[in-house]
């Protein structure tokens, strides 16, 4: 809408999170265990935001961090583990033992959540899917309605549109208007940006609007969906960012090891989040040489044109 369109939506990560992410609000994050909004998650924890409802598909360390830090009240989603590394220690402690607090969990499948965001992006109240039928996902999640469809008479599941208060999405390139370009997989990002009431774009590089116009087909999220644009280089570390840097498997392994113990996790949080004033300070602790190595690895395989 007009009031949302300006030539300069650029701001700091601190200001963007402070302005749009409020205690008790609902939120979703772009990426799909890869191109994750790690820097934004650290900032949310740093600002002491509480009682978030996260509506998302699959998340690994960033949800483990948020839950361990006590930021989350409720999760509506499909997957909270740690990929090939294992289970997510803070998620387990929260659900099994209520440490530091017990999050509410509403289970969906990834396709189910994907359809909730597609419906949200279309501004229709629901979407039909053939997933989840016949299983305990539907038994325990009463918001999934099974109907006989009025055209063919066969059972389908209806899932309600998702409309979180905020979406945070990390992309490779954006301009100050808010046009966001993505290379590699796109996850559900185009739909999350549209379904959310407010969208914050974080990006590796700010580019000119002329540069955006050179590759209009790469604009996944147009300016009119976007409220704030923040440049955060290495904003996904330790996750990967296609064309920029590879996944840091050893850093993640170390995190996973630390997170198994509550006190060690708190020390990790202290070191990498609370005593890092911003993402650059976090990168400093990770080590710029290490980040360069991850970039070297990624660029051996993938390069973004231009």
């Amino acid at each position, binding site marked *: 809408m007009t009031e949302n369109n300006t030539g300069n939506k650029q701001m700091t990560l601190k200001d963007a999170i402070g302005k749009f992410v409020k205690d008790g609000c609902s939120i979703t994050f772009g990426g799909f265990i890869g191109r994750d909004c790690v820097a934004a998650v650290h900032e949310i924890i740093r600002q002491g935001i509480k009682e978030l409802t996260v509506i998302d598909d699959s998340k690994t360390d960033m949800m483990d961090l948020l839950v361990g830090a006590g930021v989350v009240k409720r999760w509506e989603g499909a997957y909270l*583990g740690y990929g090939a590394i294992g289970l997510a220690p803070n998620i387990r402690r929260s659900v099994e033992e209520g440490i530091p607090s017990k999050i509410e969990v509403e289970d969906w499948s990834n396709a189910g959540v*994907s359809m909730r965001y597609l419906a949200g992006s279309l501004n229709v109240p629901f979407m039909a899917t053939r*997933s989840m039928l016949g*299983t305990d996902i539907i038994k325990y999640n009463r918001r999934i309605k099974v109907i006989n469809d009025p055209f063919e008479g066969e059972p389908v599941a209806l899932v309600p549109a998702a409309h979180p208060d905020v979406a945070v999405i990390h992309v490779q390139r954006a301009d100050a208007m808010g046009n966001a370009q993505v290379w590699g997989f796109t*996850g559900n990002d185009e739909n999350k940006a549209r379904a959310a009431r407010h969208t914050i774009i974080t990006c590796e590089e700010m580019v000119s609007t002329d540069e955006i116009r050179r590759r209009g087909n790469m604009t996944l999220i147009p300016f009119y969906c976007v409220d704030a644009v923040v440049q955060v280089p290495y904003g996904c570390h330790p996750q990967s960012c296609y064309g920029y840097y590879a996944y840091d498997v*050893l850093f993640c392994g170390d995190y996973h090891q630390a997170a198994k113990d509550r006190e060690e996790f708190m020390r990790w949080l202290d070191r990498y989040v609370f005593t890092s004033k911003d993402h650059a300070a976090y990168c400093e602790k990770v080590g710029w040489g290490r980040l360069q190595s991850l970039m070297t690895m990624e660029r051996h395989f993938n390069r973004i044109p231009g």
Partner: protein
Amino acid sequence: MDNQRYTASELMAIMTAKEFRDWEVAFVGIGIPLVAGITAKRFHAPNLNIVYESGCIGPQKYRVDFNVGDSSAADGALCLTSEWRVFSDMQCGYYDVGVLGAAQVDKFGNLNTTAIFGDRDYCLPLVRLPGSGGGNDIGSNIGRVVVMLRLEPLRFVEKVDYITTPGFLDGTPEARKRAGLPGSGPVAVVTDKALFRFDSSTREMYLDTIYPGVDAGEVKSMVGWEIKIAAELKVAPEPEDRELAAVRAADPANLIMGGAAARKSLASLDEYIDLTIRNSGRF
């Protein structure tokens, strides 16, 4: 199985690789299923295309992935698109085969990846697992589903605590169709000791193939119901050297197969990067 030529994980990868056919489109999770897919491409299925739920279709497999959205999943892909699109293409029936892990499987091939209740319940479980992820969607929609998990008594149960992913549901005729599920259900359960299949008339899992050095009694003792055995029980061949070599080349730093121990044995991240780049042309 104490044979030191190969590990249980390596054998699982090789047995799973045989389930893929050339020119199929396969929906394969990260970890051992992915190594199986890469191995199949090296041998009998060079035109197998792998799809990742993040939105990557048909990548060149230069390196293994630890997450479905790792940039490696996109290396040289034929098509890079969205998660919702890939799940929709799955719902259209474009994907031939899916490989799924699970914490628990039951007699009718239903899978649990949500929670082990123990003496507790869904809301306060003994072990909270990751949840469905894309597992339910694969089990619901794909024609042929292969399940992969270790053979352990707590994993092979008569009835799973929570059906995350549909197998043949309650096992009654047409149960999947009545529920509205498009896919035809699981076709194999690959473990570290034996391979199971499903009876086409009863939809019940039975022991189809045992691995070298394993006996049927050992298998029966680890299954939580009276498992039936194929009239002609097969014995899997020993993995060939070239198969083992392919599996190891796919995971040169041994981080998928070796887990935390292998991570510790690496001197530095740079060593891992060097290993990955040096081996990247090999499959």
